[in-house]
């Protein structure tokens, strides 16, 4: 059984770098080949990367999306960005309801600020985040008719979950009704506009006149929650214990973070660890692994996301999907998110992205689509998830329509034969002096992180394509036609392999 002190094989190192980043850069591959650090030491190094928000410029929503994409394509701090994407899905908020780009970019900065910080502080801040307040109706929560939208999703999606990991309910409808009272009266100030329209600095504030005070609504009963779940006893927990008014929403968070599941374990710790394991390791992690990483990191007392991640990245369960081909029915693999696929591909191929004033952010020489349109077709529009539930993962990413979108993206990359920015130059990532078909295929697969992910039969199919059905024994990559047709075509096919859709 491995742990933080275990040595990393080159394969495991490649896996660690891939899963905590976006594909493998040339430097990553060198690191993997030469690494002598233990799991813990290398993980610590990766975790030291500091989150840095994108420079949002421009004045429209699509400008903001493009800015984020460019940032992702070139940032050195990849692990924080992977985390921000996870939190973006977790605290799902979308422009369609929020309406103002400036609020979305402000929330994006919040996600960066807390990406690997203190999860409890994160939730406290999210309660007051203007974009979230718009998205889930906190701004429309009035004392006459408390609105349940945010309280329900706070419990269901952001913290406890409807049921614990053993299938037992975590809360009742009564709890939601009471928590809704705590959130009455919260609004946010009108935004302070800077010159660039996509930055806003709105701030939440508490309007006493709109708040549900017990004295005014005695028929609603005491401000008490969790009388039947959570381990607080029949008396439950009072969220006006620190006084009525603005403190209530903070006290609610205190109570949520003290909630215990049907086995007496901390509910939020288990659920958050479960979700992070699903994201970085594989679907359906076992309860035993969940409890181990929580225990190792003491996440249930310190709420330190970075510590929890260290426990996850040094645990054997994280390395399960590193298995090499050929696979068998019990092999576990995880499906790449569209953003993983797109950014991973762009970075692996050494492509430099820049937004063109007129044409937006596209792959030059390729198809007609903007990169964010590719992502939308694959089912993942940044800053506009399909609902408060975020995106559905794993196989749900792969329907005929979204697979087709991945194939279209692959074609566009392959067809990008230009000069300059936003284009794909194979010579940046492999030597054009190679002539042996197998060596060329190997080189392409290595660039794309597929070296050990294709079976012999699959590699033979790619070699067959390169050699035009076996008729060519030597390939001249310096010949323009061979380069533009065969080599580009080979890359596109590799991007369309089933294995490339997976981690």
């Amino acid at each position, binding site marked *: 059984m491995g742990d933080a002190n275990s040595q990393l094989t080159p394969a495991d190192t490649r896996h660690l770098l891939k899963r905590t980043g976006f594909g493998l850069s040339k430097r990553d591959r060198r690191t993997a080949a030469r690494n002598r650090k233990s799991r813990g030491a290398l993980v610590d190094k990766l975790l030291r990367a500091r989150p840095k928000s994108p420079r949002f410029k421009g004045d429209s929503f699509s400008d903001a999306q493009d800015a984020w994409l460019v940032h992702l394509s070139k940032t050195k701090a990849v692990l924080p960005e992977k985390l921000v994407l996870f939190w973006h899905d977790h605290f799902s908020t979308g422009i369609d309801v929020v309406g103002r780009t400036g609020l979305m970019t402000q929330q994006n900065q919040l996600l960066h600020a807390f990406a690997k910080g203190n999860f409890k502080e994160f939730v406290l801040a999210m309660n007051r985040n203007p974009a979230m307040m718009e998205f889930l*109706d906190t701004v*429309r929560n*009035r004392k006459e*008719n408390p*609105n*349940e*939208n945010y309280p*329900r999703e706070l419990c*269901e999606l952001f913290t406890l979950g*409807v049921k614990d990991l053993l*299938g037992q309910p975590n809360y009742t*409808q*009564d709890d*939601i009704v009471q928590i809704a009272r705590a959130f009455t009266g919260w609004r946010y100030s009108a935004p302070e506009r800077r010159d660039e329209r996509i930055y806003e600095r709105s701030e939440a504030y508490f309007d006493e006149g709109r708040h549900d005070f017990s004295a005014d609504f005695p028929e609603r009963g005491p401000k008490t929650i969790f009388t039947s779940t959570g381990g607080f006893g029949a008396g439950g927990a009072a969220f006006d214990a620190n006084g009525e008014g603005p403190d209530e929403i903070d006290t609610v968070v205190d109570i949520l973070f003290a909630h215990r599941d049907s086995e007496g374990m901390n509910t939020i710790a288990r659920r958050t660890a479960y979700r992070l394991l699903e994201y970085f390791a594989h679907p359906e992690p076992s309860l035993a692994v969940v409890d181990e990483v929580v225990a190792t990191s003491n996440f249930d007392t310190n709420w330190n996301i970075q510590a929890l991640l260290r426990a996850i990245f040094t645990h054997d369960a994280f390395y399960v999907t590193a298995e090499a081909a050929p*696979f*068998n*029915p*019990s*092999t576990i*693999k995880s499906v790449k998110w569209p953003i993983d696929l797109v950014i991973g591909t762009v970075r692996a191929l050494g492509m430099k992205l820049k937004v063109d004033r007129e044409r937006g952010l596209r792959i030059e020489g390729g*198809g007609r689509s903007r990169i964010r349109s590719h992502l939308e*077709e694959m*089912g993942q529009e940044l800053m506009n998830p399909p*609902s408060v*539930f975020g995106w*559905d993962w*794993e*196989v*749900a990413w*792969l*329907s*005929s*329509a*979204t*697979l*087709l979108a991945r*194939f279209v993206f*692959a*074609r*566009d990359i*392959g*067809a990008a*034969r230009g000069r300059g920015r936003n284009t794909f130059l194979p010579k940046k990532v492999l030597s054009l002096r190679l002539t042996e078909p197998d060596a060329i295929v190997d080189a392409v697969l290595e660039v794309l992180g597929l070296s050990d992910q294709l079976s012999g*039969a*699959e590699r033979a*199919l*790619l070699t*067959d*394509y390169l050699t*035009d*059905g076996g008729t060519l024994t030597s390939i001249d990559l310096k010949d323009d036609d061979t380069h*533009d*047709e*065969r080599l*580009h*075509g080979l890359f*596109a*096919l590799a991007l369309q*392999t*089933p294995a490339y859709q997976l981690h």
Partner: protein
Amino acid sequence: MAITRRQFLKRSSTAAAGGLLAPSLLGNGWMQQAFADTIGDRYFVVLFLDGGNDGLNTVSPIDDGGGLLRTAYDGWRNTGVGGINLAPGVLSPQAIGADPGTGAQLGLHPGLSDLKTLYDLGKVAVVQGCGYPDFSLSHDDSRRAWRTASPGGTSSTGWMGRYLAANYVGTDIPAAGISNGVPGEFVQSATSVLTVRRVRDFRFPYDTSFRSDIDLKRATFNDLHEAARAGGQPSVLTHIGNAGTATLLSTEAYPALHDTYQLDRPTWDQAYSDNNSSTSNDLREIAKIIYGVESGVPNVNARFFQVRNGGYDTHSDQGGADPDGSHFNLHQEVGRALKLFYDDLADMGAIDKVCVMLFSEFGRRIPQNDNGTDHGSQGPMFVIGGNVVGGTYGNHPNIEESALDRSGNTVYSQDGADAFRSTDFRDVYGTILKHWLNMPHGQIVTDVLPLDTGDPAEWWTAENFDMGFLP
């Protein structure tokens, strides 16, 4: 006993051999037509109203009849600012007859005038009070309950998925979702469900700068996916193999359906465009596919479809009878789209072979909040088609104060003596499976819709797959 398709293909030699490279090849393998002992020459469309449609304002009491439905309604739905009360005067033109339980006259929401027209033709079944035991107010939980027909949450396959899995195999493409993701109702791993947003755009992406090697590229792509769906792979790879191949072959057959439809049915095409709504546009895609199947286009065999309209989660600004209100607009969009779709298919001579089922993951709170409604419990379903036995089925839920639970929701009941007895949605599904999709009654219970256990008054322990809205 006639053997099923699946048994037939298991016994015959492997379907994978030969012919996958040539798109026009029929015979063993992909794109077979459905056997007559399943859906036969019929079609089935699921239209999901996403977000929790306010049932009380969709099928509403006009008067009290022999009970107190209208009186209770007026107590819960306000007039004035923010009020969503639908006045009797607004509902009467939309009357659909009497509630079986209380005798109260019922009317459809004014936005559904087109649906009322179809109702008057006898082609709409309104099924009241549909829900399930121990209902959940969570979108996610409740959607899952309806899609898997497994309220306890133990199943991960869709209810229609289990039907498809029992009747088709991996090389079939019997179903299409007009969406980006496989609809939850259809989820399973035995057969392929196409997902396509617009058939015209569903083309395989080839690099057109270099055409000379397109055949070789296609063959390589095809073989790579065949390798993934060969035996001995993890299920996610098999899934990609199946989906990739289905996508490849469908991209070669489906886009032409758009051109054919536009050419042959231009006025209908324009009519959908004039509606200018996502529901109309999505239903048009289904019409194009059905037209293709009806015309015998090779390699197009989808007969099961799913489409969704979103926006029903009207916590605020729901609106009542005002044509600018959000609920009104949702209803009008769907009613208009369905009427056009119906007329289009009738004109094709296919409407008697089509059945459309509407559902939502829950109804909404009986007392309104400020200007909308929160999540609720039972709500109406609709079944529409040329062969449907129109009318009002099931009972309007009891909305008197004494009958609501502590949250203000109507209560689910299977008590035979209860005049307000709920309809379990699985009875609606079962009736469709039995009377439209020809699935044997016993097989429905074992393979698709297992019964609950528990108190018969509170759980679905006795099925009724003969509700009567399909002959």
